[in-house]
């Protein structure tokens, strides 16, 4: 009996130690997970604030964290003001139309679009639409093409030099060519898309399709010999072999390629928008630079941070998609 009690006491004391232990290790882990990044951010802000004061430009002091905060608020205020103006505009229009119909029942009211300038947040929207469209087109070309050259060694050898040649080309080099081609080819009296949008879009596609293309080709051609033997023993037909063995086994590589591509697409987009004057974040930065007011550098800095944040979020979303759709759950999280 006494020995049982002792064991029980022993068990409970072990359990107590254990729960204490997990508590402190939990604290340690959360301190590591939250504390260290926060500390890093704080140190960065301090260095930024101190460093910014030392840099004097023709547009005034380099923006520190406080100016950036102010400009963020001002951009939000601008956005809200613009939206209010837009609502006012439509209200007035409706009112005027109603009055004219009251006077003259045969009058057919005209609805005019509000043509105010896009706000910072509209520009974020434009950039996102452009980058996703460009990325989508790149994927639409790169994945099927990658599968083809991955399956066919001869085709791979034939296309490899071309891929290697175009892969390192900067978006800025493509842009003038793309601009001219779009202007020459896309001639319609009633354009569905702005030319600047198409130019940015195709430049993004051209620059970001390579990682997906290469990774897909490598993933497809590097199916493990063991799985190929399984396929041979089962006498799978070529089509079944591709669908059941080759494609699933290359899914992780395709996702890796897509993640790299999306990162590149977002980076390329800003440059493309600057030059193509697509009304997105790139144009925002360019316009503020040309504007040259005392707020400009602060606003550009806001854009820089927003670009970074969106890039980071896009990457996380891709990672989540990869986790959801790829069988290989050990995807790289860096």
């Amino acid at each position, binding site marked *: 009996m006494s020995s049982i009690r002792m064991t029980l006491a022993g068990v409970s004391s072990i359990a107590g130690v254990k729960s204490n232990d997990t508590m402190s290790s939990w604290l340690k882990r959360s301190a590591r997970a939250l504390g260290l990044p926060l500390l890093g951010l704080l140190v960065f802000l301090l260095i930024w604030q101190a460093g910014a004061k030392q840099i004097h430009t023709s547009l005034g002091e380099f923006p520190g964290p406080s100016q950036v905060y102010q400009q963020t608020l001002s951009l939000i205020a601008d956005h809200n003001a613009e939206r209010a103006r837009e609502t006012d505009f439509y209200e007035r229009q409706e009112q005027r139309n109603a009055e004219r119909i009251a006077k003259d029942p045969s009058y057919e009211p005209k609805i005019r679009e509000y043509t105010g300038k896009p706000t910072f947040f509209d520009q974020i929207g434009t950039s996102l639409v452009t980058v996703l469209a460009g990325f989508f087109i790149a994927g639409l070309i790169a994945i099927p093409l990658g599968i083809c050259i991955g399956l066919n060694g001869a085709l791979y050898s034939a296309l490899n030099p071309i891929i290697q040649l175009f892969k390192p080309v900067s978006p800025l080099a493509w842009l003038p060519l793309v601009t001219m081609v779009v202007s020459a080819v896309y001639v319609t009296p009633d354009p569905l898309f702005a030319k600047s949008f198409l130019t940015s879009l195709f430049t993004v596609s051209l620059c970001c399709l390579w990682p997906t293309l290469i990774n897909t080709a490598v993933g497809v051609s590097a199916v493990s010999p*063991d*799985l190929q033997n399984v396929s*041979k*023993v*089962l*006498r799978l037909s070529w089509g079944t072999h591709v669908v059941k*063995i080759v494609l*699933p*086994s290359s899914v992780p590589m395709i996702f890796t390629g897509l993640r790299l591509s999306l990162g590149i697409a977002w980076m390329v987009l800003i440059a493309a928008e600057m030059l193509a004057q697509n009304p997105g974040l790139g144009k925002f930065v360019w316009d503020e630079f040309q504007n040259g007011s005392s707020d400009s550098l602060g606003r550009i800095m806001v854009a820089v941070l927003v670009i970074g944040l969106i890039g980071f979020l896009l990457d996380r979303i891709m990672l989540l998609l990869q986790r959801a759709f790829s069988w290989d*759950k050990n995807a790289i999280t860096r």
Partner: protein
Amino acid sequence: MSLSKHLELTGVSIEFPTPKGPFKALDNVNLKIEKGEFVSLIGHSGCGKSTVLNIVAGLHKATTGGVVLEGKEVDEPGPERAVVFQNHSLLPWLSAYENVELAVKQVFKGQKSKAEMKAWIEHNLELVHMTHAMHKRPDEISGGMKQRVGIARALAMEPQVLLMDEPFGALDALTRAHLQDSLMEIQKDLNNTVIMITHDVDEAVLLSDRIVMMTNGPAATVGEILKVELPRPRDRIALADDPQYNHYRHQVLSFLYEKQRKVEDIGQHRSVKKSEEEAVELPKKRAHG
């Protein structure tokens, strides 16, 4: 024709092209196997055991000679010669059930209805005691379980010959013993013809009707064939003290370590010898435990 065996390897030789000229891996391998027989291939690493198996599987082509199964020459891989691969080779994106399903759908297309296929898949997973985890993916189950699924997949093809390439080589001793018992059970029920490659002397004696001992490469061939006439069902614990069982073990060991001792330079020879001794020690302990 009626006198010919179930599976026959006749004068099988194979040469692989290398930059230094052709390398003769196998030379004049002759082997006749009867239906329902369990044959082990044993030999030092690099002696071409796997090559023999791959030739029977159709994954390699013999340079001269050939393989005849049920009167038909083997010239390509096929499900009637199902292979259990050393590293299980399950498709990592499919569950255990789906892995077996892929094989069943391919082999019994148009012969079995959907319901029959489902029952057949489940039956085979039950044979290897995997029903509890049949909807788990390979990365969610242990190495031994993966190998079980690999065996179920091969059995589900209803092969004329089951080819096993060191099926338990990558498993720990306890799991291996467990799977060997399972395999003997299945073999008793289904009476498959099995060719199994192994490094493990105990495994060979415990499971086989005949042990084919191969000489060292290059140009390896069949050295001796040992008929194991222990009554079935065989019990590993009872056999551990059985003089006849130990006699068979002794014969295999003496072939491997006296007649076919690997001749290498002295430095390598020592380390090889050491690991050989360990390899001999380990199974002994397992047999007694």
